[in-house]
């Protein structure tokens, strides 16, 4: 039988409070292995996006640890110095934003958007950067001839696909997605979900996907964590949590979904 996959991320009792008010995240702990997709569901204000930002190195938690596997050792994200963190993150962790404009550089070409993080990771050869960019455009279903166009003129769905290409081309170990299909038309969402599902499988990366959409969670995630008021109130296999929810809030969440 297949041995257990390598642990990529371990979060230990992570807490974050903004301005001394109700905690946004309270003692959140979990672990994620290579090839696993963890969905985090909950309504706005449940703390799921704050949690994601703490994992991405964008917000420093008040307490707790974010441990990420490096090549041969474990990095403690928030105890390393800032310069090392800035160096470590781009090659290891990718954050896909809900709004593609937050994750793209609108003033450089589509190809440049894919090449830029590759260059930051040490890629120097123009020809091979361009080849990689073309491959990724194809993977995310953007016509190759658009390589020199600015993403400013792309549709929302295309921008989101480009952001995904930019985020995955460096082969990060950990991919964090914040409502990746939010803000898109339903038909565009569906196509994007198909793409994400096949890429995640093909690449075998570890993914944390934050969503308020139960359908997205069911389609993408192996495991789910349900958050309410900064706490994880229920977790387990996706189909278990959604088909046999135990917590009152999860039951409400699941029963609120309109049957298609």
């Amino acid at each position, binding site marked *: *039988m*297949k041995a*257990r*996959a390598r642990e990529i991320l371990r979060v230990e009792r992570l807490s974050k409070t903004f301005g001394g008010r109700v905690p946004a995240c309270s003692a959140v702990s979990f672990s994620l*292995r290579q090839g*696993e997709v963890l969905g985090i569901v909950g309504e706005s204000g449940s703390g799921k996006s704050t949690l994601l930002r703490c994992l991405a190195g964008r917000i420093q938690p008040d307490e707790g640890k974010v441990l990420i596997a490096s090549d041969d050792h474990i990095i403690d994200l928030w105890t390393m110095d800032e310069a090392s963190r800035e160096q470590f993150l781009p090659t290891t962790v990718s954050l896909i934003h809900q709004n593609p404009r937050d994750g793209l550089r609108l003033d450089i070409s589509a190809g440049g958007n894919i090449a830029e993080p590759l260059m930051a990771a040490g890629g120097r050869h123009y020809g091979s950067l361009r080849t990689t960019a073309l491959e990724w455009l194809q993977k995310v279903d953007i016509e190759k001839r658009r390589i020199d166009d600015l993403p400013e003129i792309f549709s929302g769905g295309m921008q989101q696909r480009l952001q995904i290409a930019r985020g995955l081309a460096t082969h990060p170990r950990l991919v964090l997605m914040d409502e990746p299909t939010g803000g898109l038309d339903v038909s565009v969402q*569906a196509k994007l979900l*198909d793409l994400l*599902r096949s890429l995640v499988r093909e690449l075998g990366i570890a993914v944390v996907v934050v969503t308020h959409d139960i359908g997205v969670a069911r*389609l993408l995630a*192996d*495991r789910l964590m349900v958050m309410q008021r900064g706490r994880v109130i229920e977790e*387990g*296999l996706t*189909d*278990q949590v959604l*088909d*046999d929810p*135990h*917590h*009152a*809030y999860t*039951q*409400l969440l699941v*029963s609120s979904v309109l049957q298609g």
Partner: protein
Amino acid sequence: MKDTIMTILVSVDGLSKAFTLHTQGGAEIEVFKDVSLEVLAGECVCLHGPSGAGKSTLLRSLYANYKPDAGQIIVQHGGESIDLVSAEPWEVLEVRRHTMGYVSQFLRVIPRVVTIDVVAEPAIAIGIPADEAHAKAKALLARLSIPERLWSLAPATFSGGEQQRVNIARGFMVNYPVLLLDEPTASLDSANRRSVVELINEAKARGTAIVGIFHDEEVREAVADRLFEVGHSSVRKSRRRTATAEAVA
């Protein structure tokens, strides 16, 4: 029967399951209590009992789709014994990929994925080459008389019977040591029922342990080695808990 102990593939002990419906005033429904069951290789056990007795709930619990409140479900998985009630999510997924198949009453698949891929997917997921998987998928679809022109379409628009046959084909894609079948013949005509009976009996001959719900008497007679009564020991009760109802509101 000296070596029967070696061939027990599923061993259920003291399994209990209740639902607490927080959104409905905290009503508590006890479905079954203290269920114990052993299933041998090559054996087909039919879950039996009136509608609402908890047969599907028990079957879903065996697949770890529902979380039992107490008890154990020990499955023989690649030479190891794994308790699905206490297993980690990744272990459950491994058991489902390699050891335990489940044919649900209704096809629930990913929208837009075409039939042939829906069927072939479980085999591809365990590393069987795509050509081989597609060849087997085609053979199963043909056996279950799904017309070839439908293979490259997504099954969302198929009739109930067609969807169920796609579901069955998918369930038989991998030769799982354990197979759970929830009314696999419910909306099939007699020719297709016979095909399903054949598939089940071939699986039994390979040593597959089967637990199923078969309402159709003819099918039951043809495949089941014994009946397992569900619902005898369970006591149904329903009570309201205002405290929970208020907490939800």
